[in-house]
């Protein structure tokens, strides 16, 4: 092997190797992306996932495929997503349930909400409303009073 050519060929191969990972990232996505939805089809969050998924697919040029994996208070689907290869081809439709309730309601949810995930985006919120029978008089304070008076006392 000629000494003069050896370093050059080494340099060439090094340049090729370091270019490869960057190319793989800038060309993402090259295939469909699955969006894990830990709710059954047809529910509120499933509908929202499909709305966002369709638009996202249009702008990324690859289909977003919704994959429903419901059960155990969203932990089954969330645990599944936590174990997926972190290559950008698996995402999770997360929520207050997956990341704030279930981690504390289940001794073994199957994932660590804070460690196993990278936050991407807070898409939206659905405000809760309290309601009561329409014939009842008064507003919120009266509603609470009624509840206090009429609710059965625990034994």
């Amino acid at each position, binding site marked *: 092997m000629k000494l003069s050519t050896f370093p050059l060929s080494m340099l060439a191969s090094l340049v090729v190797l370091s270019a490869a990972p960057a190319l793989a*990232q800038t060309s*993402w996505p090259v295939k469909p992306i699955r969006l894990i939805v830990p709710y059954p089809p047809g529910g*509120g*969050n499933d*509908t*929202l996932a499909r*709305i*966002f998924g369709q*638009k*996202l697919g249009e*702008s*990324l040029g690859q289909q977003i495929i919704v994959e429903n994996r419901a059960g155990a208070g969203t932990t089954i689907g969330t645990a599944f*997503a*936590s174990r*997926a290869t*972190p290559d*950008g081809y*698996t*995402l*999770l439709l*997360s*929520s*207050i349930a997956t*990341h*704030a309730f279930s*981690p*504390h*309601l289940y001794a073994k949810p199957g994932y660590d*909400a*804070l*460690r196993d995930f*990278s*936050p*991407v*985006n*807070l*898409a*939206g*919120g*659905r*405000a*809760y*409303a*309290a*309601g*009561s*029978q*329409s014939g*009842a008089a008064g*507003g*919120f*304070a009266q*509603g*609470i009073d*009624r*509840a*206090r008076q009429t*609710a*059965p006392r*625990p034994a």
Partner: protein
Amino acid sequence: MLGETFKSLAKIDIIQVPYKGGAPAVVGTISGEAQMMADPAASVLPHVKSGRLRALAIARATRLPELPQVPTFAEAGMPEYTASAWYSVHAPAKTPNEIVARLNKELVRIVNLPEIRERLKDLGSDGVGNTPDEFGRFVSEEHAKYGRLIKAMGIKPE
């Protein structure tokens, strides 16, 4: 779960009637079987508009345009109850930052599209859209907040 939070903050011993979902709960409240219910605003909106259900308060910073007469929980005297059933996108940890950044940019753009705003409104949702770091901080806060609340309510993990 948000019903439990409400119960805890209002400091009343409501026996939570375990209806299987929002629709039976609405029916139960209209019939008087249950005195009060809490559910995503979109589910109760048609019943409030028809007059069968009376909306008492809404967990939102400002009043819902569709229900201008319904006070927020803060206005009604319970400012701590700001619960909203937020939904979001996460990726597995170690997903490359460039991909997360691109997804975030696209999702924020989508949330602000007029047609999406309309569709979200129909579903009773507000669009938010923030940066991954802002969202990450929000998740940590919510995770800690409900951890404390669930423990304070004496709910043991199953």
